[in-house]
């Protein structure tokens, strides 16, 4: 009897968690989607964003989001993979036990701190070295690249460790060097996990808001170079929601819907990739 009650209470709590997810999803779409149809897909995916005058084109923000995400991957993938390979294959157990938690700690640093470091160090550095305003695609890419490192490192590391040791022995027994084994065998064998890590990192980069607002400059245009200022979907929502009303507010929810859809697609791809082992 007591068991039954406990079971039902747990069930209720579990469902309320799922329910809140469903409610959020429903709310975002219910607020945002009607505006997309009201504006028309063609106008919605154009570059004219002047929400107070009824222009709701979000193309430059989509491109901005994609640019900083791609930039983050360019920075994050090589460093993340190199780090995972070093930890999993080239370092002693003691080093692994010390370094892995430290890298995972990177994920615990609040994003505003990343943004702050970006403003204080990276932005002036870019301005003085390469010119331009400093607040730029480049700055955002580098900071986001660092922010997604823990995701890429820990998932890639785990999937490298999951490669059976017999593969390594077999490869060494054929006369492979350690590096050949990594390059020709282990990265191949662990690739589903590595790809999943990268995709989850991508999700993190595209959804990041605070750090990006602080260092990307937020100018409303499609950036012409890496040194140009850029505005993402997330920063638009955060910057404008405070004073938005009516259709403007709905347009921000529409941005949210698009983000939501992108992230859901990324997660589904990640699950698919890891599932197919």
């Amino acid at each position: 009897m007591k068991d039954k009650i406990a079971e039902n209470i747990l069930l209720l709590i579990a469902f309320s968690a799922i329910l809140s997810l469903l409610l959020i999803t429903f709310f975002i779409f219910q607020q945002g989607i009607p505006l997309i149809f009201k504006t028309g897909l063609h106008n919605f995916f154009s570059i004219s964003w002047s929400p107070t005058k009824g222009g709701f084109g979000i193309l430059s923000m989509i491109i901005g989001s994609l640019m900083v995400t791609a930039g983050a991957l360019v920075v994050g993938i090589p460093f993340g993979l190199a780090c995972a390979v070093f930890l999993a294959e080239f370092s002693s157990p003691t080093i692994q036990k010390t370094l892995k938690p430290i890298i995972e700690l990177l994920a615990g640093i609040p994003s505003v701190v990343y943004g702050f470091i970006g403003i204080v160090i990276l932005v002036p550095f870019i301005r003085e070295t390469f010119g331009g305003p400093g607040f730029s695609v480049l700055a955002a890419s580098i900071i986001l690249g660092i922010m997604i490192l823990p995701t890429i490192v820990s998932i890639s590391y785990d999937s490298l460790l999951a490669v059976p040791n017999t593969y390594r022995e077999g490869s060494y027994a054929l006369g492979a060097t350690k590096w050949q084994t990594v390059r020709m065998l282990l990265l191949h064998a662990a690739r589903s996990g590595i790809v999943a890590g990268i995709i989850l990192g991508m999700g993190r980069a595209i959804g990041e808001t605070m750090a990006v607002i602080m260092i990307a400059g937020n100018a409303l245009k499609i950036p012409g170079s890496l040194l140009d200022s850029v505005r993402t979907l997330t920063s638009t929502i955060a910057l404008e929601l405070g004073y938005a009303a009516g259709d403007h507010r709905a347009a921000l929810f529409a941005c949210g819907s698009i983000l939501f859809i992108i992230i859901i697609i990324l997660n589904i791809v990640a699950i698919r990739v890891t599932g197919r082992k």
Partner: protein
Amino acid sequence: MIKVAIQNLNLFYDTVQALKNISLDIQNNEIFGVIGPANSGKSSLLRAINRLYEIDYARMTGRILLDGEDIFNLPVNDLRRRVGLIFATPVVLPGSVYKNISYGPKLHNTFKKNELDERVSTALHAANLWDEVKDRLWDSASTLSGGQQQRLCIARTLAMDPEVIMMDEPCSGLDPVSTTKIEATMLELKKQYTFILVTNNTKQAARIADRTAFFLSGELIEVDISKTIFTSPRDQRTDDYIRGRFG
């Protein structure tokens, strides 16, 4: 002619001594059988010869000579190319049959596509596997049966152009038909290669090994022509083991 000479070999895993003062000569083009119960040091012997023990953080003393040259004077990759090792459980690498066989050669050299094709086909023919897989070269190697996988591993070793082929209980997980096929393959190949065959199956050693060594607790008890070992061993312990009184 002596192919592999082992002199006063000791091997330690941490504090455990796996091999105790082993001295052995292995002749060119023979099948050299190694028998003994579990933990007698048979596998350690193989892992010492191709220096695979190094990845287990084991420590070795003594000398091993390949064609009269100390194996520590050879680049380790070259040593392992010349001395192939086949494991008890077939180690099939992810990817196709073709990719498995070409993996070894690609490690040591760059090949043109047709040269590589040639190597793959020669190796598969030599391992008596060609007819069974010629239409499945691009299928995943893990779809092959256990016996086929083990012959795939033999082919993969052959593709590297080795001189010595070491086998660590290659038939322990296989059915009698697959075992017969592998034994037939070895008997054919021994014209060109030297085999060291570690086996738990004393009958297998009796069937195909030219000479056989009996190991017990890391010591070499005796080594002789297989016929002598299996009919009139000098040491009582060998006799007991062969007759199944222990181990």
